[in-house]
């Protein structure tokens, strides 16, 4: 009876509990793979959006610098940093501008999605006498600028 039982057991094929365990591990493997990919995709998307946001901030900064036309614009910025505060330049972006001795400090950020990402630029403007056709005389004005610092906080 003993050897017959043994032979019977060995020829029963794959048992139901064994199948269930194997299926469970296969399902676990698939779930782990899907979970890992989904997480890594989300993280990557977040990093890509942040990189894209930084490009946008830089574009906005250059756009702002482009609109500084003359010495009058430069003189309109406060020399005391405590007097400067973030003010909106359009519906999304806020800017803080002040003068530090001869340099102009500009801080730019987006208020809603990335309020902690601030682009800070320090520009050194070179001034010289420029002939003014309106007044037919030499007047001090901007002739160039140089970026001294440029980066995110």
């Amino acid at each position: 009876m003993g050897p017959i039982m043994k032979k019977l057991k060995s020829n029963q094929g794959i048992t139901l509990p064994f199948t269930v365990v194997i299926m469970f591990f296969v399902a676990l493997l698939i779930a782990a793979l899907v979970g890992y990919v989904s997480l890594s995709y989300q993280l990557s998307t977040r990093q890509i959006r942040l990189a894209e946001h930084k490009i946008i901030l830089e574009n906005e900064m250059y756009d702002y610098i482009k609109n500084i036309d003359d010495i009058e614009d430069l003189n309109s910025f406060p020399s005391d940093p405590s007097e400067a505060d973030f003010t909106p330049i359009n519906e999304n972006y806020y800017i803080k501008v002040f003068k530090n001795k001869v340099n102009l400090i500009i801080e730019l950020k987006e208020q809603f999605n990335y309020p902690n990402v601030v682009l800070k630029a320090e520009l050194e403007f070179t001034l010289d006498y420029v002939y003014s056709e309106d007044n037919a005389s030499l007047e001090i004005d901007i002739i160039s600028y140089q970026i001294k610092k440029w980066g995110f906080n």
Partner: protein
Amino acid sequence: MKTVKADKRGFSLTEVIVSIAIVSIVVLAVSSTFLSVRRIERQKVARENLVSEIRNIYNIFSSEPNDDFISLIERIYDVEDPNNKTTIKIESINDVEDHNKETTKITIYYNSLFQPSETGENLIVCYYSKEKGNNSINYTLKLEVQGSYQNYIKKEALTRTIKVWGQS
């Protein structure tokens, strides 16, 4: 004795069909998961490369916004190829409406993973223009993504204008 007889029968046709069906379902599920994973991974790499390429192009532009930009970008992207195929194409566009504005179209060719390649499955088209002012020149670089990811990047990220004083 009965059980010994049953032992010699082997698998019935129904058992074989059911096992094949179950194994097929499992193999299908696993392989489709792996294929999806591979596709998503490739998409991720392509998107990362796209943003990185846009950042690189703008870094080159910001370092040399003046006329040297074109030769600099050509030097960086024009890879020597034995088949004489190129990853970059540069052409001038005449603006008939505004004679003060000169535009150059720079097309950079990429593969499906957004790596520079002559296959041209994806493209970044750069419109580089300069506009003269009184005592300054505004250099503008406008990018256009063509291919599978053309709507992926916000349009605000695709235009940069740099003003350079003292040139006119």
